């Protein structure tokens, strides 16, 4: 641990992200120690709630010279499959207003090379390493998980069940509640590491998929993966991506992400990691208030690789200026107009095994 760790807090007050019932304390006196940025999430203890999102930060080490890795709460790797994947033909990216579309197709070095070549170098950083797991079949997911399981440096696993850019596999687990439950349950058998499932926004009810993941044994959910989109070049009359459609990310998707974080955090009863267009510390505070226990930064890294450290500093300043001793005091503390406050979902709501067809499910 480093000197930059927050000073120990007085008493035995819980720093758990789940300690939501505690009432916020009064504004601290001026000599109050630095705000506590630590969060506890699905058994993970993070130095702060700022992580990098899968697919935007390579395998973590490539950017050690650009990003202060020691300032990060965690790193989520590029999605790793049992074998290296070649990825999609170019063009794979294009810019859109307030964001970008990508169709990388999960190009990656494979779990074996990650474990042998990359993981040893990540050991010296305090940021928690979360391996993003991708497979085309349940068996492929299990093979990646089995390779990751023996390594204590891998703090948690994030299941990618929602990549919109691969032809087969992956997406079905993210879009079908029963397939989701079975996949998560199978993975749960193979690992005792914290298990995070990354939800797709491209479904009618992310809550329903989140409940299925919970039923399968997930410890946390990350919301959201990219939003399926497309871009057209009027001059050439062609789509701008080789695959025609791709995943939209960046500030353009932030309102969608906030809505899903809000719904899923209330409707599922698992901690949620917010992702989608996060670029400033106010974005971070908004996601925490909406119900996220931590956030991942993605596309903003491409514009400014130093984004995460700015978010940590900004969040700390916000906590100090608002007299908030713990970052966890913000989680889910959105103030709602009384008449509009949704009723909390029952803690053990049953999983809808076969979603109703022909229209959005009704909230009873």
């Amino acid at each position, binding site marked *: 641990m480093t000197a930059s760790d927050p000073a120990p807090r007085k008493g035995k007050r819980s720093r758990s992200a789940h300690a939501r019932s505690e009432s916020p304390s009064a504004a601290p006196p001026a000599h109050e120690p630095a705000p506590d940025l630590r969060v506890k999430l699905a058994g993970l203890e993070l130095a702060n709630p700022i992580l990098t999102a899968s697919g*935007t930060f390579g395998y973590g080490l490539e950017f050690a010279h650009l990003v202060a890795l020691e300032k990060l709460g965690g790193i989520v790797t590029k999605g790793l499959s049992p074998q290296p994947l070649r990825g999609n033909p170019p063009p794979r990216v294009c810019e859109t207003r*307030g964001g970008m579309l990508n169709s990388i197709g999960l190009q990656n070095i494979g779990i074996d090379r990650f474990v042998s070549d990359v993981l040893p170098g990540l050991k010296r950083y305090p940021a928690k390493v979360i391996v993003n797991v991708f497979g085309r079949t349940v068996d492929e997911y299990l093979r990646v998980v089995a390779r990751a399981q023996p390594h204590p440096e891998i703090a948690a696993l994030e299941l990618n069940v929602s990549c919109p850019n691969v032809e087969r596999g992956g997406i079905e687990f993210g879009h079908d509640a029963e397939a989701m439950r079975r996949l998560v349950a199978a993975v749960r058998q193979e690992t005792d590491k914290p298990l995070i499932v990354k939800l797709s926004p491209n479904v009618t009810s992310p809550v329903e998929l989140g409940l299925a993941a919970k039923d399968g044994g997930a410890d946390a959910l990350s919301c959201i993966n990219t939003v399926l989109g497309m871009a057209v070049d009027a001059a050439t009359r062609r789509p701008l991506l080789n695959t025609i459609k791709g995943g939209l990310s960046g500030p353009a998707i932030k309102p969608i992400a906030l809505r899903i974080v809000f719904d899923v955090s209330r409707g599922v009863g698992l901690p949620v990691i917010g992702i989608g267009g996060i670029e400033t510390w106010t974005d971070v505070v908004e996601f925490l208030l909406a119900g996220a226990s931590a956030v991942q930064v993605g596309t903003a890294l491409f514009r400014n690789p130093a984004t995460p450290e700015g978010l940590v500093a900004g969040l700390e300043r916000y906590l100090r200026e608002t007299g908030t001793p713990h970052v966890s005091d913000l989680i889910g503390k959105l103030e709602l107009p009384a008449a509009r406050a949704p009723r909390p979902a029952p803690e053990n709501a049953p999983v809808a095994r076969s979603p109703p067809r022909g229209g959005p499910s009704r909230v009873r």
Partner: protein
Amino acid sequence: MLDVRARVIAVDEHPLPYFTLRLGVPAGYPAVAPGQFVMVQVGDRLEPYLRRAFSVYDIGDGEDAGGSPSARLDGRAAPAVDAPGGVEMRLLGKVIGRGTRLLGASRPGDEVGVLGPLGRGFGARTAGRVAVVAGGVGSAALLLLARRLATGDPFDVFYGGRSRRDLPDADRFEELAEASGGELYATTEDGSAGRRGLVTEPLRERLAGGFYAHLYACGPMGLLARLAALCAEHGVPGEAALETAMGCGFGACLGCAVPHVAGHYALCCKDGPVFRFDEVAW
């Protein structure tokens, strides 16, 4: 690699849509190899959101300028850089969208974020006469190279575009080539400057004559593919700076895939932007 705030010294206008952006970057800026690039952040708005990739067109590095601490380009006295001891970096731009339009409209004193230098530049020069082939704004990746080549064996420049305005810096290339004992072969498709036709036509004749030990190029992908085939045909090794759609510029997004002959996708930003002709599956 550094992420610096650069100050706009001036924007030199060429015939539209071309412009040269002259930036002051801090003293001690890392050495830039010909062919390397920078990612430029244009404003802080949502559009454009991502940075734009630009070849480093020119940079005062003290080395070629006789060790002078002030920025000097081509051995001529450069205009003062506003940061004392700073270095002037030049980018050649072509207005094609909102980002380049905003950059071209920059005013002296404006600040832009410059991340770089990035990527793999051109390899060490080979002995013997060499050819430098530019297609349009591809010349942006080749001026630094031409400056380095100007002190060695002769080199010829083949510079082609649709029209006269697409050869915005033909004079400088001509000067550098002639200083080395070589010459400029300019072509335009409409015949408004140089020889009418494609840049590959005079090149083909010279390649057939066995004049060249090596070829350096930058331009549209179609041109580069033709050059790769021409070089293979004449047994001349060559390399080219490629341009692709790019998200981040530093290997994070994996967006700038280039099909490699070995079967995988290389990254333009990290494995390139300069590739040997025989590395790319054209």
